[in-house]
């Protein structure tokens, strides 16, 4: 083999090598980077109970402190800005899905949230979150698709989204026909006259919930399961406010004083547990 041919060979192999190198780049087999040893994950399960009994929809199984019997037809809500508070100060805030999670009693998949966050492994002593959406996050049209979309709150009433829709029907001995009561929370309005065209200001009703839980540890490379339970009876019975469905209006939307009282109850509605298997 003479010299010019040899150099052609070298050039060809050079090109082939490069080509192979580039083509190889489109292989899919790259393994995911291993979880750094000092991070773990979290999953949050949402449970709904009434006086400690798991919620059953559409069933006339519940009653308030005044003996009104009622059924729950829908329960839909947002929680956001979940924070894990470090033992000794500081907190980690869940950032996946913009830190917003939607729960719908009719959609079982929504009862489990697996944020993809890499959470620093440490001992945390409590969990907190925003019930609903904070003013910064409660942006109109942020959810174009159902089911979150169907939570939208009218623009003229402040916009954004319902924090919660809790639709019920109640009855009692003197009102034997089921009547609607809708506990809808969202931005409140200050009315000059009692008319939608006389709104002079808005009130952010979202609130902060801090749950005391026994300290838990996020272990490196492991998934920690938390359970957040909503005690629905406390929306109605408090503390601090015990509502009598028979004397409430049919809803609380556009009724800021009542929304405010309901939100006071809301602060005590949740508890957090660590499943024993953890």
């Amino acid at each position: 083999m003479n010299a010019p041919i040899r150099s052609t060979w070298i050039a060809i192999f050079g090109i082939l090598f490069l080509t192979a190198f580039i083509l190889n780049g489109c292989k899919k087999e790259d393994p995911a980077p291993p979880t750094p040893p000092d991070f773990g994950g979290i999953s949050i399960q949402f449970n709904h109970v009434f006086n400690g009994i798991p919620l059953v929809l559409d069933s006339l199984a519940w009653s308030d402190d005044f003996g009104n019997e009622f059924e729950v037809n829908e329960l839909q809500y947002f929680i956001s800005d979940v924070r894990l508070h470090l033992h000794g100060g500081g907190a980690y805030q869940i950032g996946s899905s913009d830190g917003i999670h939607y729960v719908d009693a009719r959609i079982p998949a929504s009862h489990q949230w697996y944020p993809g966050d890499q959470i620093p492994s440490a001992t945390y002593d409590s969990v907190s979150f925003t019930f609903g959406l904070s003013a910064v996050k409660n942006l109109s049209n942020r959810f174009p698709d159902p089911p979150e979309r169907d939570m939208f709150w009218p623009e003229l009433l402040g916009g954004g989204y319902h924090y919660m829709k809790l639709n019920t029907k109640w009855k009692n001995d003197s009102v034997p026909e089921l009547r609607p009561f809708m506990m809808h929370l969202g931005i409140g309005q200050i009315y000059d006259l009692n008319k939608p065209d006389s709104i002079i200001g808005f009130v952010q009703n979202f609130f902060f919930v801090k749950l005391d839980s026994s300290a838990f540890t996020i272990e490196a490379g492991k998934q920690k399961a938390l359970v957040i339970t909503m005690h629905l009876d406390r929306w109605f019975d408090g503390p601090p406010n015990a509502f009598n469905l028979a004397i409430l209006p049919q809803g609380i939307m556009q009724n800021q004083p009542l929304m405010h009282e309901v939100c006071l109850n809301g602060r005590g509605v949740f508890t957090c547990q660590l499943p024993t298997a953890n």
Partner: protein
Amino acid sequence: MNRITLYIIIFLALFSCKKSDPPVSSYQPTPYQIVIPFRFPTQLNIPDDNPMTVEGIELGRMLFYDGRISGSAHPDSMMTCATCHLQSRSFECGIDHPKYTGGHPFGVTGIPTPHYMMPMINLVWTHTGYLWNGKIYPDNPAPGIRHLEDLVWMAIIAPHEMNSDTNKAKILIQSISGYPEMFQKAFGSSTVTVRNMGKAIAQFVRTLISADSKFDSYLKGEVQLMPNELNGYVLFMTEQGGDCFHCHGGEGNPLFTTNLFYNNGKDSVFTDPRDRYQVSGDPSDIGAYKAPTLRNLIFTAPYMHDGRFKTIDEVIDFYSSGLVWSPYVNPLMHHISSGGNQLTPAKKADLKAFLLTLTDSSFVNNPAFGMPDLP
């Protein structure tokens, strides 16, 4: 072939990670992209096995308008989708239909449809099931009753529609010159199948998007609503007017329907064997039907699944003072215990003025949705 070329080929073949290209064929349909209108949802209901193509839509439009899909070429027994779904009536049949008195359609043999017409617009955003009771839905354990595609064989055999059989239909279509070529272009096979007829028509139906009403322009900030229309909109969105938006959408949901099912308080006795309860088995769905979109109401009388209201005014009167209590009424009908939202005549007029801002005349005149020249 010299050795170097051979090496190159072997080398490239060894390292190439591309799947080898499928053999080139004459079947190369043109992909069709749905343009999502302002504020409309982003998730489309298009099954993986029926991507939208220009050729598929064109074929679907032909079949939608061709009475011979009923398997008959005789004028008396020819029937097609467009016999009942008229573009000029926003693809319902209209209360003034020349044949279907009062807007109640019947099949080729005279058997009335169990329900009246319902909206057939913006269906590419329906994920909760088609028909008034949502009976056609993706997880349906019964195969063949899952997608928009399936409505085609159902319409062909239904006694209250074409009352035909699918064999007759596909044999006739196969025999019409022009169609086999179109099936080839759309689906890569010139053999007419009912499955492909369904796919083509479903593709066409998915293009029936109505999003060009005055209200849409208002949302985009292009026009202002008149004071009475705005008043009506306030009623639509608030307690004072009956919170229509909870079920029928609004600025945050411009489909003007949640596509969910509710009992809206029309009756106290329920005997319809085709309500939502028959599909869900949930007693709270007794007497429930899908909340229809409120777009294009001007074209789509009569209203409700049983066509009981002839005018928009009658519907507004119903929500104002005609509500009937039953244990199944959805709690969102929160004026139920007082029979309705008790609107004054002036407020009723405002509410109606708002509803009419949802009229999209360009849709009912869009030549792309009209009758094509048939093969």
